[in-house]
């Protein structure tokens, strides 16, 4: 399997207003390959979202090496990183982060506005296909405020997958859902990721959600460790 992401000794430090340094991530080593399903467990404030931002090219490490498809991200300019992110990474957020006032179809089409050529011109068709795949084609014209939490998260999944990303990053995807809906959303996410051979990285504090992954890690005080019995 091709390695998508490779982290070696990655740290992320921020300077607080009182000039003190806060070490959010410390020496993180991690490899993500195509088709992987990885879960990262951790309590609130342990650095999970910071790690997700690094994996999703939204941020760069303070030190260490982070390679995306073999290229160190430090060498990629911010605009090129944005384009690379758009074409290869799909985000699923805890609070869905759908665009309010827009229909489900508009939301799913949104990433295709940043695609070029055929994908842009076929945006409606591709978005409808993806809505159909998550079982919400009939709700294409519905707006987020008229949908249940489960439906909104399925729309968010369709939006994350519409550009056929190679990496799907899910930040607490079931955090705002009840147990039953959360399980169905995770099953859907796992299925569509497997079908498209995309790597799925789920960040969660829920052991049941993490249990669905093939490799699991725990992030504690900025240190990432493989959970026992699971290959790192």
């Amino acid at each position: 399997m091709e390695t998508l992401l490779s982290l070696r000794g990655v740290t992320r430090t921020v300077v607080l207003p009182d000039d003190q340094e806060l070490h959010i991530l410390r020496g993180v080593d991690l490899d993500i390959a195509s088709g992987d399903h990885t879960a990262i467990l951790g309590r609130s404030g342990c650095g999970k979202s910071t790690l997700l931002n690094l994996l999703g090219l939204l941020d760069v490490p303070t030190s260490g090496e982070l390679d995306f498809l073999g290229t160190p991200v430090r060498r990629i300019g911010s605009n090129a990183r944005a384009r690379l992110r758009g074409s290869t990474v799909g985000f699923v957020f805890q609070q869905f982060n759908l665009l309010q006032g827009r229909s489900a179809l508009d939301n799913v089409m949104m990433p295709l506005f940043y695609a070029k050529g055929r994908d842009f011109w076929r945006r409606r068709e591709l978005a409808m296909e993806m809505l159909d795949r998550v079982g919400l084609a009939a709700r294409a014209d519905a707006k987020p405020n008229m949908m249940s939490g489960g439906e909104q998260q399925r729309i968010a999944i369709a939006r994350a997958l519409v550009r056929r990303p190679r990496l799907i990053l899910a930040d607490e995807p079931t955090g705002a859902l009840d147990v039953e809906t959360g399980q169905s959303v995770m099953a859907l996410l796992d299925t569509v990721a497997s079908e498209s051979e995309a790597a799925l990285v789920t960040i969660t504090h829920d052991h049941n959600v993490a249990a669905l992954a093939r490799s699991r890690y725990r992030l504690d005080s900025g240190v990432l460790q493989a959970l026992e019995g699971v290959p790192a």
Partner: protein
Amino acid sequence: MSGFVSGIASALVEAWQELRINKVRILLALVAVAVSVAALTSVVGVGDLAREGFKVQSERQGGRTATVGISVYGPTGPLDPARMDKAYQGIVERYGISYWTNVGQSQAKFQFPQGVQDVQMTLVDPGYGVIHRIDMRQGSWFADDDAKRLAPAVVVSEAFYNAAGRPDLVQNPKVKTAGGQETTAVIIGVVPDMYEGMPPSAFMLRDSAAAAGITAGFGEFKVWLQDEQAETLVQAIQMDLQAQFPGANANVFRQDYAAQGDPLAMAQIVVGAVAGLVLLLGAMGMLNISMVTIRYRVREIGIRRSFGATSGRIFVGVMMESLVASCVAGIAGVMLSIAVVKNPWIQSKVAPGLDEYPPFPIEAAMLGFGAAVLVGALAGAIPALVAVRVKVIDAIRF
């Protein structure tokens, strides 16, 4: 190439989608812009119309651009008219002047169905009609051979025509002068009255009038010159006449309104400045609303950036939204302005002297639309810069 085209298209479609979604907010911001564009465009449009009306009125009175009046006074009074006529004809021939006229004022009595009335007579040459932009209500102005008619031709005012019982001009209606030498004249044309309630008046060719015993006192000679040659020719004619009549005082001067400068320019500048101020206030309102909106759109900007929107794309998106909206407002404003300026009631009040109104000035439409685009660009640039500075990670959590 395909990527470039789809990039442009996607920015436009995205901007239009934003407008559609936020139509109420944008509509509120754009009403002010559309109204101020309409005001600015109307100032130019109405100003042009008023200027055209004023020009026509002025040309009817003072002559077209450039009409030059020529007169010569001897040291003890007017010179011999026959000698003067010869001198004027010499000027016409030497300087190749196509349109010229002698103008003299006189009074004559005419026999109307209701009795005899005094009529103000203007004794002219055929060139007067062209020089003074005579607008015929009916019939025609004098031709050169009208001077050869046995029954002199008259062009009468509307008041004269009414007093004569509005006869059919096709029948060559006749009117008689009364008192002194009785002459039968033929009405060949009717011109509008200069003002409401104007007493009857008429034009007659000088030679015909002389034959009918109607003579003018001191007259004036007028020539119509090309604007760019006027200054040189005025000096040349002045020197020419001065040389012909040593010791006399030759007056050669422009009479047309264009020589006096544009009397409406200052008023138009003042009203234009007020309209510009209104436009500026509209732009400030639009900018204000855009800035507030950007604060509410921070999360959306973060989401878009996480799905691949570059900072340049975010800038263009916010900017285009403002530009597309202001273009729509500009078109609406210009259309409103056209509706105002081309309104028949407004046209009749602004330019009462015109029979045919000029088309809506394209420069006014361009100015209004250009101003709207400029406002959109200015009101879009600042929020767009703010949007670009949004930090993606913070924005998603916003």
